């Protein structure tokens, strides 16, 4: 029976892994070929190998679609892992990557930037925008870490995060009373997120930031796994809980800050995807869940971006519109599932 259980598990992990690799490849290719100018696999290869294929499709794929799909994959994966970390930490399945006030902090600094500094109408994701969003996200994080030292119970952190959210929203609303209409519209657009206008520079930067963060996260699988039994048991096993709290907050924040900086706050991915991943794997073990959440988040976001881009082409939907339409029912389903079958 014991052997059976282990075998079943490994079998399940393998199936999920193979499914994800296939899904990833299929959605990736679909994203490159679909659009106002359809492309073929042959043209994708030309774009990838960089031979001077001068046809328009190849150019579009190389300059526009490829960076965009890579970013959707990277950022989607990052969001899922960020959500997984916070859910494990708080022991709460609906703690998302933005519960600690990161998106509101970013929105505030972006609004500041938009109104007093940059003329938004020129470019949607200029460097100044990315930097200001990242700075705002990290500012919220810094505040949370400051609070975390003196909060006895981690539920206090959640409250602190929500309060930061309120403060930043209030400050943003205050700013908006003095803003021009176009700024308000732009800010609203930003806060719904979008993967459009991604550049190769962006791909490079986020690959480095997310890559390093993910590697560190994966290497910390063991203490993250111990947290599943709660902080006190983790402490009794030898985890330095005080330090580890800050590490978890930092890691998840860098991931979601990176997403917010490049694509704006993308909702629901961080809550729905880790849930689905756990359900698929029937496991909560970080060693498998970190890579699987990342892959699932990537697939989910690429798919949502494809839908956002193509359903009402040439008009594009905001990414959060699509992720919410798919994500929210999943969250509801998950609550119902809990009620029906008790405990999974």
């Amino acid at each position: 029976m014991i052997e059976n259980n282990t075998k079943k598990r490994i079998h399940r992990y393998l199936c999920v892994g193979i499914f994800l690799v296939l899904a990833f490849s299929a959605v990736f290719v679909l994203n490159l070929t679909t659009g106002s100018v359809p492309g073929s696999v042959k043209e994708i290869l030309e774009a990838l190998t960089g031979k001077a294929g001068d046809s328009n499709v190849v150019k579009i794929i190389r300059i526009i679609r490829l960076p965009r799909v890579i970013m959707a994959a990277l950022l989607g994966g990052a969001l899922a892992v960020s959500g997984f970390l916070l859910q494990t930490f708080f022991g709460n399945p609906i703690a998302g990557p933005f519960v600690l006030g990161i998106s509101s902090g970013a929105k505030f600094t972006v609004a500041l930037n938009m109104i007093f500094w940059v003329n938004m109408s020129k470019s949607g994701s200029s460097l100044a925008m990315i930097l200001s969003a990242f700075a705002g996200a990290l500012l919220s994080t810094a505040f949370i870490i400051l609070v975390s030292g003196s909060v006895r119970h981690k539920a206090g952190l959640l409250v602190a995060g929500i309060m930061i959210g309120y403060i930043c929203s209030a400050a943003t609303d205050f700013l908006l009373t003095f803003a021009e209409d176009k700024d308000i519209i732009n800010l609203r657009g930003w806060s719904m997120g979008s993967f459009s206008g991604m550049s190769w520079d962006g791909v490079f930067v986020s690959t480095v930031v997310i890559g390093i963060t993910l590697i560190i996260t994966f290497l910390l699988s063991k203490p993250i796994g111990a947290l599943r039994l709660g902080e006190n048991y983790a402490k009794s096993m030898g985890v330095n809980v005080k330090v580890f709290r800050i590490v978890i907050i930092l890691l998840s924040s860098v991931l979601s800050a990176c997403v917010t900086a490049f694509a704006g706050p993308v909702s629901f991915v961080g809550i729905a995807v880790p849930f689905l991943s756990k359900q698929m794997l029937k496991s909560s073990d970080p060693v498998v869940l970190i890579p699987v959440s990342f892959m699932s988040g990537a697939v989910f976001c690429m798919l949502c971006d494809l839908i956002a881009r193509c359903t009402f082409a040439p008009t594009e939907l905001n990414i959060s519109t699509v992720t919410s339409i798919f994500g929210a029912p999943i969250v509801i389903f998950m609550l119902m599932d809990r009620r029906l079958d008790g405990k999974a």
Partner: protein
Amino acid sequence: MERPENYTDKKALKQKGSSAGDDSDAAMKNIIRPNGLSVRDDSDVAMKDIIRLNGLSVGYEGDAIIENIDLEIGKGEIVTLIGPNGAGKSTILKTISKQLEPVLGAVYVSGRELRKFGSSELAKVLSLLLTERIDPEYMTGRDIIETGRYPYTGKMGILNEKDHAVVDGIIKLLGISELAERPFRKLSDGQKQRILIGRALAQEPKILILDEPMSYLDIRHKLELIEILKKLRSEKNITIVMSLHEFELARVIADKVICVGEEGISRAGKPEEVLQPDVLKELYGITDEQFKLLLQSMRLVL
């Protein structure tokens, strides 16, 4: 709650000590305890005691609930803490297991001060059963027990053959081979408790700290647990410190019973000496009539 007169003095002393530098030992040595002994430092502590509490005050955030505990626990002893709810049994256990910092004084384990242990170093010596409930997703009983191997596994926490053998041994010892393969969340409270006791054992500790291990267990499993704890003591010479609500069980398992009452530790000693009607009545604040009722109910059943 009343506090002894010297309470504020000691607190002031402690604050002075910690602001002067982080070495509160220095400040500690200056404190003369009521019985006239000054607190010893590490080198004086005899090795035969595996746990020693020296002038220990326990509590939360610097507020002591119980003050000035002096206690020695020998290797292989089974010690039980009895007393009313909220008196501080758990607080003492949490302080001994380094979940809580001492308010004052120190805990020594194998002659070494507790705070000088690295956290994973301590985890190999001392393991813990807490009263708090846990709710981990998608973990089987076996998964939970396996987390007890944490201090022994490598960087990624993968169990090797020896780890699996230890876990299998514990599952067999506790007779939970069927429970171990089921999802933890679907188990009853008593079944969860047995899994968590297994988890504590998987750490292969020299000292086992159990906070109310008998709660949720039915009478058969209570008796089984007593047998298991005795076996652990006789086979592996494990030292066990636990809190119990069932003082009648303390009589058959404990080498030493400590009464933790409203005014701190009121009595400590051999179970046959401590577990007397008068002591119990006073400790729990039971009236004579209530005590008669208790005796009556026991007699009727037996």
